[in-house]
């Protein structure tokens, strides 16, 4: 099984985890990306959203499980063919929530290009933006090293 281990800077990443956990809690009841389900009937719609929420919650649990005792002792997180897919999806979900909750003041171009003035941000927004970048880095790492296992699974 292909596995990658990444050593993270504890002093940098640990403070971001509170934000990630807080947003992860909010994702328990709400889809990260609101969806237009068109003209489908209510019962089908409820089942559709319910199934998406269930999958989203499982993915977010896999992301949070990365930050276990080993992470707090050594700063190491590990990605493999089993957790890569849920984690890369959970990162997308949390990033969408970060955008909605903390980063809605930034325009799309600035966010896409990463051209933002950190000094002009409040502490909460700056921390949220660091989370946003951190989760993008996790996604890039997984896509770079494990995308074939995700695509073929």
């Amino acid at each position: 099984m292909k596995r990658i281990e990444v050593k993270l800077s504890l002093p940098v990443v640990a403070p971001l985890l509170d934000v990630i956990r807080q947003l992860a809690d909010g994702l328990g009841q709400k889809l990260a990306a609101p969806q237009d389900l068109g003209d489908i009937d209510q019962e089908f719609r409820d089942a559709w959203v319910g199934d998406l929420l269930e999958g989203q919650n499982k993915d977010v649990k896999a992301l949070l499980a990365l930050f276990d005792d080993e992470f707090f002792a050594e700063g190491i997180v590990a990605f493999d063919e089993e957790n890569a897919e849920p984690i890369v999806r959970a990162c997308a979900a949390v990033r969408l929530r970060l955008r909605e909750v903390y980063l809605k003041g930034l325009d799309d171009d600035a966010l896409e290009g990463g051209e933002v003035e950190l000094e002009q941000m409040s502490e909460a927004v700056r921390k949220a933006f660091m989370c946003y970048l951190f989760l993008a880095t996790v996604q890039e790492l997984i896509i770079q090293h494990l995308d074939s296992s995700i695509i073929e699974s």
Partner: protein
Amino acid sequence: MTRAGPKDSSSTETISHTELKLSGVWRVVVLNDPVNLMSYVMMVFKKIFGFSETVARRHMLEVHEQGRSVVWSGLREKAEAYVYTLQQWHLTAVVESDETH
């Protein structure tokens, strides 16, 4: 992959045309969002639709530059299944009726 003979192929085509005529053609449209990474969107397209790198990139750029891309069209039930799967990956996707058929 096994290729069907001429007789089977014609019969399948007739059924398929009848089905499409009855239920119409539906399109799976992916809409742009400023959050998801280009590499992520490409990976999702490759996984779900089996697109090559080139085709996945073309659709991703269409989403990015034009705001939307039609990634699949066909029967409604299958279109809805694709939209559900895209939504599992947190892409914004909708099913639209293809009025041209």
